């Protein structure tokens, strides 16, 4: 969910590896970021809407990743994927480190790019 720079790149990498990939975005203009070689599905829809998720095939999905700009949208869609559709693996990007910690404690698999990137820069600078 979310066809931004990270979403589009992840989708095309997983597609190259031979996985069946569907990208969901509520702005079709975002799909321009997908390379022409992309063999998966690009679907217009709102990822916090159960109907749109069903259309994207969430009931058969093994993995769901939320990568929109909005932390709250990501959190909500991941909780739908996990608690309503029982997707085996759900990953959630949350920029805000405090929110990330809380949802991680609540059992979501979360990544805070803010935290990771700051840490990475520190290591580079100090190492």
């Amino acid at each position: 969910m979310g066809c931004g720079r990270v979403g589009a790149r992840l989708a095309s990498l997983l597609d190259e590896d031979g996985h069946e990939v569907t990208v969901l975005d509520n702005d079709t203009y975002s799909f321009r970021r997908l390379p022409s070689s992309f063999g998966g599905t690009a679907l217009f829809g709102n990822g916090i809407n159960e109907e749109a998720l069903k259309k994207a095939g969430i009931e058969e999905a093994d993995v769901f990743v939320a990568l929109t700009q909005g932390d709250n949208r990501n959190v909500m869609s991941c909780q739908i994927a996990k608690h309503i559709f029982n997707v085996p693996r759900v990953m959630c990007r949350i920029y805000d480190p405090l929110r990330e910690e809380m949802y991680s404690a609540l059992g979501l698999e979360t990544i805070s790019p803010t935290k990771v990137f700051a840490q990475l820069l520190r290591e580079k600078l100090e190492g």
Partner: protein
Amino acid sequence: MYIIIVGGGRLGYNLLKALLNEGHEVLLLEKDARICRTIIEEMGSVCYRGDGCEAAILDEVGTGRADMMVAVTGDDEDNLVACQVAKHKHNVPRTIARIRNPQNAALFKKLGIDVTVSTTDLILETIEREVPTHPLTQLMALDEKGLVIVDVKISPESATVGKTVKDLSLPKESKLALVIPNQGNAHVPAANTVLRAGDQIIAVTSPESKEALQIALRGV
């Protein structure tokens, strides 16, 4: 009671006013500086600028001692997160979220939000009640019992006019509670009560049987 409201739109603004009038301690959280200023100018320091989804902001306003959080922004995802942070980080005993997509009620309940209010459903129900030809209106939901109370009108065209209650093939989850005739007093229906055109029937039913109940009362 200390109540925190998230979202200073029309709903949040009016809720703030109403709760202050009732004598509660209320604080409204709003991201937009201009809206904050307007509210403070009108009502004093009852508004705080900040994102109600951020644990740090909620800390600053003493959410730990709040009795209730009401999230009424226009975005369901923001209301969900505000309530979850209040509940899990600050142990707020009661959280209420406004939802715009009625489908989200089940999800929010599952995720521990105490009460959801679907503004879309409320508006729909109110309008439906005002449409004179609408044969079935939901009056109230008894969420804990999984039942709803509905109002069904018997139109002159209904095949059930002149029939008795025992002749109806009612779904077994539905019970007729009251018949309000066009003229005369409301009465509790018995097996031999005869239906008349213009009768208004108050019934209790499971939400799934609403349609079947309506068909049974129309008789087609």
